[in-house]
């Protein structure tokens, strides 16, 4: 096979634009609804407040952060099925497979669209609307955008370690640092998108339900496989937890490196799983028959 038949930048550019148009035509309404979910929830909360307490008040920041996360999750789970699920149907799949672009270009485009383009556009609209609402209504507190760093830290630290905790037990700061690598979370987010994209192109029916089942089955297998490696650490961790009567004991506990190893295992596991998912999507498209 000639290189030009595997990847050609011009052709990929044309295909990507065409894919974007096609995806927009199929999914724009759902995407708009998801992107405006913050506005819908805000209006709903204000109206409920006015109706029941007679006071003006929108949702607080924590709730808005939560709904933002939920909206992005809904986007990641529904977009691949809506945009690419039809490739397994004869009517749509046939003409799609016959488009003169290589399998690699088609897969690359769908992966980029799923893990970057759709979340960035939808997330961008969501955050812009949130910022606009907070600029107009001062009762909403801070917008989510400047709090993204805070949001990140919320997930990795403040939910289980306050500044007081860190002052009292310096090892916790070390522990937090060990699990502060953003890639630990980014690869999970990419993984969710890839699972649903793989489900959309692999399963012919019941795509979402079968994807969730496959995900749980895969997670169970990984957990069982990981048990021998992780059990030594967990046993040690559990033993030391029972004797955690001083700052030194806590320090020793966290210096075990259990979180560092767990984080490393999680990163390797997610990276391998994501590579497997990419390979699965590629070979599915490569061997798709109608």
């Amino acid at each position, binding site marked *: 096979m000639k290189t030009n038949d595997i990847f050609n930048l011009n052709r990929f550019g044309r295909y990507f634009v*065409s894919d974007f148009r096609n995806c927009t035509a199929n999914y724009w309404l759902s995407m708009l609804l998801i992107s405006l979910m913050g506005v819908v929830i805000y209006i709903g909360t204000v109206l409920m407040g006015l109706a029941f307490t007679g006071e003006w008040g929108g949702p607080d920041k924590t709730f808005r952060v939560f709904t933002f996360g939920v909206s992005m999750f809904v986007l990641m789970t529904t977009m691949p099925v809506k945009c690419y699920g039809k490739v397994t149907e004869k009517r749509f799949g*046939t003409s799609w497979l016959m488009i003169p*672009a290589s399998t690699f270009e088609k897969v690359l485009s769908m992966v980029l669209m799923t893990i970057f383009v759709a979340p960035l556009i939808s997330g961008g609209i969501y955050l812009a609307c949130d910022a606009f609402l907070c600029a107009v209504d001062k009762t909403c507190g801070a917008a989510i955008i400047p709090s993204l760093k805070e949001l990140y830290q919320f997930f990795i630290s403040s939910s289980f370690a306050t500044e007081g905790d860190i002052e009292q037990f310096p090892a916790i700061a070390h522990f937090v640092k060990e699990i502060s690598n953003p890639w630990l979370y980014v690869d999970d987010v990419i993984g969710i998108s890839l699972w649903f994209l793989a489900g959309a192109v692999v399963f012919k029916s019941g795509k979402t339900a079968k994807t969730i089942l496959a995900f749980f089955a895969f997670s169970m297998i990984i957990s069982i496989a990981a048990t021998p490696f992780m059990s030594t650490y967990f046993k040690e961790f559990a033993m030391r937890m029972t004797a955690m009567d001083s700052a030194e004991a806590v320090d020793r506990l966290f210096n075990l490196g259990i979180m560092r190893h767990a984080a490393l295992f999680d990163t390797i596991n997610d990276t391998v799983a994501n590579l497997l998912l990419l390979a699965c999507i590629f070979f599915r498209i490569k061997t798709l028959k109608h």
Partner: protein
Amino acid sequence: MISIKNLGFSYGEGIVLKDITMTLEEGRIYGLLGENGVGKTTLLTLLSGLKDPKAGSIEIDGHTPYKREPSLLSEIYYLCDEVAEVNMKAIDYAVNYGRFWEKFNLDKFVEIMGVLENDINQKMNRMSFGQLKKTYISFALACNTRYIFMDEPTNGLDIPSKAQFRKAVMKYTREDSTLLISTHQVRDLENIIDPIIILDKQDVLLNASIEEISKKLHFDYSSEKREGALYSEMIPGANVQVSLNTEEEESKVNIEALFNTVHMHKELIKGLFS
């Protein structure tokens, strides 16, 4: 040129195509005929690279279709019998997807849509099945590919549209293009298909041009009963009788009668045209 060698395909245990060998030359409009389930659609999908042959090989200009290389895909258009209702206007669809076929001509698409009396500004998911089919036919011809494979293209078309379809195929097909049209509606395509391929279960019964057929078989439309006729059928106003053309008489091939003759005398016809 399309070269098919010892092609075999099966769905599980059920063999559909077995040891099929033939060559399709450029600049011809082949009619692919056969009873239901003999593998017409399967053959078209194999040629389009939508299926992988279980045995034998297919080569199109030196390429293997199942590899789906863009350089070959840009020379093929496959019009499936079930067409997709895309959420786009016909013209937007043509602009969006036409750019992948190097020789696609948007003006030609608009012109053919006009010939087929179809609205380019209508959304494809709001079209009737016939309108949708006409949009895809227009697109297929506007792609200007070397190979066009059509599966039951006249299904869903009304009577005037069938005539418009014939006109469009004759007028807008590239001279060096090879068309392979599978159909049950032989009367819709009677004057445009040549050569004719008749598939049987796991076999090719006939692959011959109209000229060859009329040299070897005689089609008699008189009401007089001919001795030794291989097939005879009442048609409005007369009979059609098919017999061996021993006296080298000229006659117009009736494809429906030919099809029935071939099915009644498989071995004889195979021997006659081999």
